[in-house]
Structures are given as C-alpha cells and as structure tokens.
C-alpha cells in the first residue's frame, strides 16, 4: 500500500517508542523488583471465623524486620483497624473480604490491591519512614464507603517497639 514517506518514518518511530516503553516496564518488573499482586489462594468468605489465618487477624513478626498482617475487610471497616510496626520493616498483608468488593490502598507506597470475596489478596511493602499511614478502601462498597479506612503506625525503630510488636 502506498504510504506517505513522512508517515512511514512516523510509523517506525511509534513502533520503536512503544517497544521501548514495554521493555522499560518489563525491566522494572523483573529486575527492579516491582511486581504485581499474585493470587493468594481461595477462601470461603462466610467461614472466615474458622479458617486460618483469618480466624486470628492481626500482626505477626515472621523474621527480623519482617511482619505479616492478616486482615479482614467488611462493610465498612478493616479488622484490625490499627496496626503498629517499626520503621524499616517489610510487611506482607494477607487480606480478604467478608462481603462485597473492597479496595486496599496505602497512599505513598506501592500497596494497591483489590479485595474480592472468595480470593485472598497479598501485597508486600516496606515502611521506611516512621509516621502514620492509612489504608483506604478505594472500591465502592456501599453507603459507608467513604468512612472505610485503617491506621498504620510506623514507629521509630527502637528495640522496645520491636519487643512490643513481638508480644502482640
């Protein structure tokens, strides 16, 4: 098909550009350690009270500076509604919904995942700076959606706070 010369050049540049973007994304994903949430398994939303680990929501230390948080989302709260971890720790959240869709977003981190009843969502993030962070539900979940959030207190990494986290 006859194509204008400038247009041909433009077409090749477009192809190249998209190729570069795509490779950049892949490089970031596989070498930069940026990864999308992967499936965390199935669960019956009506049986959470007797399905480990969701029968005991809360924070557990699983290694030096490594924590696991088991969490349940329901209209219109996260359980637990407050967690504490020391600064510099890597936290893996294991979350599921008891009822409708919810969202899980911690602004200023890479933690952003959908909560779908029946599915377990997993997301890992590192809290470098101490301070108060928030988990916000970012999917419409009914009339109280705008009130659904939880708090994360990231405490200055003293040995005392680590000990307390271990007790919990």
């Amino acid at each position, binding site marked *: 098909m006859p194509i204008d010369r400038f247009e041909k050049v433009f*077409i090749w540049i477009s192809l190249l550009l*998209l190729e570069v973007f795509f490779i950049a994304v892949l490089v970031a994903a596989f070498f930069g350690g940026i990864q*999308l949430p992967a*499936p965390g398994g199935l669960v019956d939303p009506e049986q959470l009270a007797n399905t480990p680990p969701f029968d005991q929501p809360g924070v557990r230390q699983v290694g030096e500076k490594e924590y696991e948080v088991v969490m349940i989302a329901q209209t219109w709260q996260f359980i637990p509604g407050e967690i504490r971890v020391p600064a510099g720790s890597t936290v893996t959240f294991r979350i599921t919904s008891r009822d409708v869709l919810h969202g899980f977003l911690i602004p200023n981190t890479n933690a952003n995942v959908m909560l779908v009843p029946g*599915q377990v969502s997993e997301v890992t993030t590192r809290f470098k700076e101490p301070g108060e962070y928030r988990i916000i539900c970012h999917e419409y979940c009914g009339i*109280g959606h705008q009130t659904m959030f939880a708090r994360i207190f990231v405490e200055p990494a003293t040995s005392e706070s680590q000990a307390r986290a271990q007790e919990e």
Partner: protein
Amino acid sequence: MQAQQFRPHDRFVLWQLYIALAAIFLGVIMGFFQALERMNIDLFKLFGFASYYQGLTLHGVLNVLVFTTAFIGAFLTYVTMRSLGRPMASYRLTALQFVLMVVGVLLAGWKMLDNSSSVLFTFYPPLQAHPLFYVGLVFVVLSSWVTFLNIALTVRAWQRDHPGEAVPLQAFLSLVVYLMWFIASIGVAAEVLVLLIPWSLGLVERTDPQLARTLFWFTGHAIVYFWLLPAYISWYTMLPKQVGSKLLSDPLTRLVFLMFLLFSVPVGFHHQFVDPGVPVMWKTIHAALTYAVFFPSMITFFSVIASLEMAGRARGGKGLFGWITKLPWNDPSVTAQLLAGIGFMFGGISGLINASYNLNQVVHNTSFVPGHFHLTVGTGVFLSYLGILYWLIPALTGRKLWQPRLGVVSSWLWLVGVSIFSRGQIAGGLEGMPRRTWMAAATYVFESWRIPNMMTAVGGTLMFLGAMSFFAVLLGTLFLSRERVTVSMPVADVITPPEAASPLFTRQLGLWVTVLIVLIMITYGPYMISYLSNPAFVARGFRVW
C-alpha cells in the same frame, strides 16, 4: 428520491439521538453535583437524591452506557445509508433497535431513580441491583446488536449489487466498529445473562465475583474503542471535508480500524492488574498487547494532523504552527472536534501511564483514573459527538443551527474546564485520593487533596457551563430556529484510493475476524479453562446503600 427512502429510518435515528441527549443531559447534571460535592456543596440532598452514590450510578450509566450506545446506533445507521446510497436493509430492524433502546433506558432509569440499584455503572457483584436494572442494560446491548445486524445486512445487499467492488469507506468502517463491539460485548452479556440475572432473581444463591469481573473487563476495555471509533470515523472521513482538505489514504484508514478490531479485546486484564484472582503471567501478556493498541491511535494522530495541516496551509497558514490558526475555528462542529483531539492527546499520554503495569499500581482506583478518562471519553469522544451533532441535527431537522457562536464557546468552556478538572483529579490521585468516593463525608481526608478537590469543583463547573451552552444551542435550533437549510453529511475526498491496496485491507473481513478469535483464545482461553476448573461461587447478594 433517496431522501424519500431514507426518511422513515431517519425518523428513528433522530428520536434515538433525543434519547442519547436526554441521557447525557441528566448525566452531566449529576457530574456537576459530584464536582460541587468536593467543596461540601450538597445538591444531591437538595434535589431529593438518596445519596452521592445514586447520583454517581446515574452519571456513569447514562453517560457511558446509554448516551454512547444510543448515539452510535443512530449516527452509524445514518452514515451507512449515506455511504452506500441506499436505505437500511430492514425497516423493522431500525424500528426494533429504537424500541429496545427506549425500553432498556426506561427500565434501567427507573431502577436507578428509585435507588434500588445504586451499584455504579460497573455493577460489580456481590452488590446486587434490582433484576430489572440488569434487564434494562441487556435491552440496551440488544439494541446495539440489532444495529449491527442491520448494518451487516445492508452492506451485504450493497455487495450483491456491486460484485468485486470495495465497500465504500464509511460503511466499511461502521461495519468494523460493530463487528468489534459485537464480539467484545459477549463477555458482559454472559456476565449479566448467566451470572447476574439468575442470581438477582434468587434462582441461584451465590455467584463468583472474580469471574464476573473478568467477564466484565473482557468487554470493558473494548467498549472504549466502541465509543472512540465513531469519533475517528468523523476525524478521518468528515473533518477533512469540513476544513477544506482531503483524507490521505483510504486503505490506511481501513487498516487502522482493522488493527483496532484485533487489539481492542485481548487486553482486558489491564483493568485487573491488581486483582487477586489473575496470575501475573496473564497480566503481563495483556500489558504487552495494550501497547499494540496504542499504535493505530498514533497513526491516526499523524493522518488527521497531516490532513488538517494541508487545509491550514491551503488557507495561507505559514510556519511550523501558523497553519493551526487558519483553520475554520468559527465553525462549531470543527472547533468541537479540534478541541476534542487536543483533550484526547493529553488523555492518551495519561493512559500510557495507566497502562504501564507497575505505575498502575500507584494510580489504580484513585482519582487519577477519572482524571484520565474525562480527557479521553469525556472530551475526545464527548466533544467529537457534540461536533457531529452540530451538523447532524440540522441535517435531520432541516433547521439552521441556532447561535453557532455559542456553539464555539461551549467547546472552549469544556476544554478549559476539563483541563482544570483533570489536572485536579490526576494530582489528587497521585496523592492517593480514592475515586468513587463521597468526599464531603469522608473520614480520612488528607490535606494534600484540598487543592485537587477545589480544581475538580471549579473545572467541573466550567464543564457544566460548556455542556449547558451546547444544550442551549440544541434547544434553540429545535424550537427557535426559523430558517430552513439543507445540510448533508460531509464526505472527504481521498488521495490514495482503496484500489491502491491489497484486498486484504479492504475486503477480507472474515480473515481478520478469524485472527481475532484465535487471539482471544490465546489470551483468555487457557486462563478461563484453569479458572473454571476451580471457580469461587461463594457470594450472596448485598444491598448496602
């Protein structure tokens, strides 16, 4: 003679446009209320709405499900007849398309207005709407399928009378648009018919919310190309005529649309990058194809600008950008489409960010997303449709456009408004401001969202004024305009004719559809088989609004 034959079809075309316009009228008012909500001004309560979310459901459903589908059905029916120089193959189908649309809109509208279905336009289960809400949406989709059938039959009839000739460009493009849409819409049709309606009627107790999302997004990405491509038909084949230029290449235009046919559907998982039930490998494959679907838009960008530049230079424009000022900016139809293109360009750039799957992790479901799509569908598509209506309504009614200057002003108001609005929403999104949220009542507002919210409200108000100016021109044309005119569809002359290319690009649609089906089987097939071997039908319905 011909006009006589078209008239019965045109009557339905015009009335279907009125449905589209009524929908967007109410939809835009809801948008205005939503924007004001960001400054704690609550008009929803004042006007008797149950909640912000009832309004938001109306906004989404009316603007992007009803307005678009009704407009496209009417517009492409009109275009097909003019392009082929013959009436639609079946008068009954034209009538049926209209009736299904009316019934669908009335049912869904009723169930949204009585607050029994405040589930937003994505209607994700386990939120459970009234069964008639889903039935209404099914009727809207059925109406679009009838349009598809009618266009296909009309093209077939033309081909029988013109053996061996390439189908005229505009009819060919209309057919490709509907072919793509028909295949794409099977996902949401399956979701609603197989999963949601039986479940909302209580025939089955539990449904699978993850499966429903996957079926929804099978359609949900392609649907944006269903909205966009009719605007591209105008940009490629009509706008050049309106500015006094030509279309560069007929076969390249066909190829662009055929690429959209191939790549619009097998990219749906890019809306589910952060879904728990989709393995990362599938997300990556769809991410790659998402870049492919940018490619035809980039060619479009070149072709359309080249065509405009030729017009500007022919009118005495000089220098790198001087030609732009020479375009007929006093024509409301042209201005609307040029500004649509500008908005769309910025929308496309923010879309690249969205689609890059690790950046998506930052912005998914934040207000960045509405910031992005009010530039694409909210401006690129919406303003283009308004631009088309500025000649189509006079063409259908024989009435001269009332106050065309106000028409020009309306598009500028919209563009300025949406620039502020989207800048605000995008900035808020980058600061973690969630979307679909009744901000005035939120219990966790961050200080960094204050200015973004203000920009949303101010920009939204200007957009509202722009839209109302459009409606003033429209109503003025219908009720005040006394002057009679004969307006016909603009059809651009073509520099490179279809005969210059291999028939692969002009005729062999069956081959392209086969490739599409293979692509869909590759990109969805294995995932679906493995998912369905262990689905999660665990969710009862909830009505929590």
